[in-house]
């Protein structure tokens, strides 16, 4: 892989088929390449390990997702839904499938409870008796970003989401997802590729500032941060304990703004033309559908286009060491994302898992075919993310080799809210720590062992992960080299 450029020239943020967005040439980083075109190789230092979480809502059809072959080379006898990954020789040997793992806390099986368990290792019921309670634990990506705080050039983590569809008509879930900070708060996901671009590359450096003035520019930018701190200090004296804590948390996050200003030159090295991807609104369009000869117009999300742009932005951020942790939510738990790109799927994602008549005139045709098709599509979209990492050189290897990705959903089988057979994949080599390309059978093991094992593989020293009956203390050793 040593001939690879850090980002292949075909890694372009293309003008998408629908005409949105503008062509953006991603950086080639000549200054960062050594004579052999290998990035960051000048000092021969090993490339950092990265950590990611990929999440999608409403599970799979375990009977059509689980590979038929156990052990290595699962792709030689994959099941239907994993075909998009099995067919891609560039990534499949760096993806492991984990079947037969389960959630141990059976006190509840609603979507938000299983999501909390699979991502944070615990669900804590709300003291209020209200619907959804608190997510008491921190998610694995949160623990990793805390452990690695300040190590990347810019951001401790980048958290993105693709589909913005909610559950039904509620404001439920619009931005909810994968990242929990251990205080019961879900962290925001960025749904706009433009905003991701801005926050990574929009460092506020005016075009007309001569390089010689960068120090002066930084000086004033840092003074801005100081003044925000002064304002906060004055406000803080007036507050109660809870709000003091919240303001302190706010100030802690400002460190990342400061960090970014201090490393403004480093990030600039990654910034090429001022062309940027589109904002989230551009990734919706009026779509004419025809089903059974009936035309209808819907507002469709451009899921494929947005997924691709986000995947490439993540790859770029990792390659430039603007972050070392990412989360990537394709569509949220229990959401009713419409996959209008799949002509035979007529229901939203969540609805499909409960009421999949899928338009068939045959009342017995409730075969959850739509769930299957959506799952297959989501696997292809996960493949796009993995491909973007595999296309990007990183030291003598590629990004996928140096990343550990935990990919999962809140269920295996969502139609029965089952706690068994969770859908779990692990991708990337974690810098050589993970044995990849395997199909492991869990035989009822605690699913929470998987993120624990991954966190340990990327270097975190943890006694365990999660709380209560769901807590895992043992690694799933077969995954480790």
């Amino acid at each position, binding site marked *: 892989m040593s001939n690879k450029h850090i980002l292949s020239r075909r890694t372009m943020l293309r003008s998408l088929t629908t005409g949105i967005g503008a062509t953006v040439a991603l950086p080639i980083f000549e200054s960062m390449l050594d004579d052999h075109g290998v990035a960051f190789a000048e000092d021969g230092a090993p490339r950092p390990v990265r950590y990611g979480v990929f999440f999608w809502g409403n599970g799979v059809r375990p009977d059509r997702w689980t590979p038929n072959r156990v052990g290595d080379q699962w792709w030689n006898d994959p099941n239907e839904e994993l075909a998009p990954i099995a067919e891609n020789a560039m990534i499949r040997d760096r993806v492991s499938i984990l079947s037969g793992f389960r959630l141990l806390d*059976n006190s509840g099986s609603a979507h938000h409870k299983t999501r909390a368990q699979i991502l944070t290792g615990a669900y804590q019921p709300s003291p209020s008796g209200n619907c959804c309670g608190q997510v008491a634990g921190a998610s694995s990506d949160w623990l990793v970003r805390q452990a690695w705080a300040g190590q990347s050039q810019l951001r401790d983590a980048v958290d993105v989401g693709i589909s913005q569809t909610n559950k039904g008509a509620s404001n*439920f879930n619009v931005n909810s997802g994968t990242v929990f900070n251990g205080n019961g708060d879900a962290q*925001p996901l960025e749904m706009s590729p433009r905003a991701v671009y801005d926050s990574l590359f929009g460092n506020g450096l005016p075009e007309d500032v001569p390089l010689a003035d960068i120090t*002066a520019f930084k000086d004033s930018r840092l003074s801005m941060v100081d003044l925000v701190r002064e304002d906060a200090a004055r406000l803080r004296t007036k507050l109660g304990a809870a709000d003091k804590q919240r303001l302190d948390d706010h100030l802690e996050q400002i460190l990342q703004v400061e960090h970014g200003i201090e490393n403004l030159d480093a990030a600039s090295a990654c910034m090429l033309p001022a062309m940027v991807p589109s904002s989230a609104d551009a990734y919706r369009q009026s779509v004419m559908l025809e089903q059974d000869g009936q035309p*209808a117009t819907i507002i469709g999300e451009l899921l494929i286009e947005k997924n691709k742009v986000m995947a490439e932005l993540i790859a770029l951020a990792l390659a430039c060491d603007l972050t070392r942790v990412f989360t990537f939510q394709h569509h949220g738990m229990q959401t009713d994302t419409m996959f209008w790109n799949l002509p035979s799927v007529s229901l939203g994602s969540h609805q499909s898992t409960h009421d999949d008549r899928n338009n068939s005139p045959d009342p017995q045709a409730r075969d959850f075919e739509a769930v299957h098709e959506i799952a297959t599509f989501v696997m292809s979209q996960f493949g796009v993310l993995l491909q973007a990492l595999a296309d990007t050189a990183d030291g003598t290897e590629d990004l996928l080799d140096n990343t550990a990705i935990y990919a999962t959903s809140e269920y295996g089988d969502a139609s029965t809210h089952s706690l068994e057979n969770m859908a779990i994949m692990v991708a990337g080599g974690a810098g050589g720590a993970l044995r990849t390309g395997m199909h492991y059978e869990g035989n009822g093991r605690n699913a929470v062992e998987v993120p624990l094992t991954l966190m340990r593989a990327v270097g975190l020293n943890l006694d365990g992960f999660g709380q209560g009956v769901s807590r895992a203390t043992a690694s799933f050793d077969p995954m480790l080299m």
Partner: protein
Amino acid sequence: MRFTDHDTGSTMRSWSTPTVRAIHAAALSLWVVGCYHGAGNANDDDLPEDSDGDNADPSNDETGDQEDEVEVAPFPAGLRRLTRLQVENAYRHVLMHDDLILGDRLPLDPSTDEDFKFDTELAAFAPFGASDIIKFDNVALSVVAEVFDMPSDTLLSCAPVDAQDQCAQDYLQGMLRRAFRRPPTEQELDEYTALAQQTQDNLGDARQGLEFATATAMQSPWMLYQPELGDGQRAQGEATQDDADFRPLSDHALASRLSLFLWNAPPDEELSALADAGELQDPDVLAAQAQRLLADPRGRDTMKGFFTQWFGYGSIETLPKNSAVFPDFSPTLASAMRAELDHAVLDIIDGAPYDSLFTSTQTWTTPALAAFYGIELPGGAGTDTQVLERWEAESGGQGCNTDGVPPQFHNLCSDSSQLRRTFTIDEAAASHAITVRAYATQGGNEVTRLRVTVDDEAAEVEIMATASDPATYTVPFTLAPGDHEVVLELANDYFEPPDNRDVMVDWFEVVSRNADPNAVVKTELPAERQGLLSRAGILSVYAKPIDTSPTTRGLFVRQRLLCEIIPDPPPGVATELPPSSDDIKTNRQRVEIHMTEQACAACHQYIDPLGLALEHFDGIGVYRETHDGAPLDVTGDLDGVQFDGAIEMGERLAEDPRVLSCAVRQLSRFALGQHESDKQEPLLQELAGVLQQTRSWPTVIEALVLSDLFRTVADHRED
């Protein structure tokens, strides 16, 4: 607990709260049978945690004597985070640029796993994440630069030479006052001046210095959060009390609370000036400001936003609806449904009685929605219709039974009897329509549909009218100038076995419509509809992509209109319903499966019957007499009160004190961003009393603003 009543001076009185306790008693008795669906208090920590409930059931002490006084307090003091919309308006305000559209350049409001919360509640005490704070930094810098680069001098009307000069100082003073929603302290002004000076020294430009100062203020906690600390003084002449649980907001905090509530925006100049002058604590002044803000277009927009969130129709245009099942559903129709709901809620802002939300026989309809409802708009109102061609249908109909058919009607019974005409459009128009006067014979339980085809485009319309009362049906098309052909034929040839159902056509015409197709006309709803529960928007939102959903419709009533909490389904149950079959046709039959399993029945017995009462309306709100030919039973009872169908259920809800009490809670949650606990319940019940007495929504808004709930806070909130 003591409390000062403004009307009667400093009278202390005890609170007896029979209403509150009655609600809890009712709720908890249901908990015992396995489905708690009581009024929703997030901090309701006296609820039983398990189902044995025997020591928590207040009915045990219904006759007891120890609970005649409950603790009463306003919401705790705290630091309230602005919503995305409020920040956007605050940025417009600080940059004096009302046309700024920032959208998702600003952080989104946080999410919830709960089915429903207002944006103000979601935001109020949520933290900002790292990506949010980076976003504020980015957007503030770039948007300030954009506005400073504009040729207009609204924001900065003079040319600063130095951060210390009069021009720069005046700018900074005004900018900070707008940003912080209060006058800046001298120290703050000094520090922002110092930043401007340093930037000027660094980058050689006084304007750049002001830009950096502005971008800093825009990400200051004083901008992004509203402190509601209770450090104010009551107006002179008002009863003073030192009760630590009722601490008045400062004048500027009160002004901000008012304008954030009614405008989602910072106080304007008039309101700020009153706060500066210390006059806002005067109840008369405060009431007048509340009225002014509510009457302003921004106030109406905000109220519309409140009801949109509450009733959940915000994303109606993007509802997933299966186009094969619901071919009529389109973003255009959905917008018309939204417009109807908007007007229905504005009607109560404009003085219609509050309960008319549930009982009004009015609609506010575009031509598209009128056609959908089967309403003839009076005198073609809103359509500016011009008849281009008109054909009287000749009597008879080849191969059809014409016995008993009035002579001027043509019988469409088969392919050979279809009506086919050509016509020419000379001039372009906004839209066209084919209008048909027709009725259908009633030969069976199936619906009778007329297919209207113009060139290659076909649309079907359900013919409900009978021989005694033929109706006019309008099918919209958009036609280019040129030659066209229209075909009318019977569409329900796919029903087996064919019933003797035919369509009889009197005349039909081609019309052009040049008026704004979105123009809304106020008129009467058809007889089968009345109030919120039979408006198409609500019926579409609370339904599935291919069907109705008695459960989600029932939950809408329980959770949103009655403020009840319904727990999750138990683990491990398959929640899909049986498919329809020869034996199972109606949704009542399908959801009865819920009732056969004890675990399901505990809750579904409270939910589903309310949704089943709306089964005469399909998944996008089209009226239907039957479902797959099976008759519909739409009777039900609302916790013991019997009703038959949507109209009666709406009437029962309009009379239900729980609905009024819930409405007031929702308003308070939206206004203050907090979910009430028992301590606020007595204050809310007072407001519910106002609503019950006056039936006036503006009056209740004013009463809320004047109440201690709004004007005071308790001690700091705890985590």
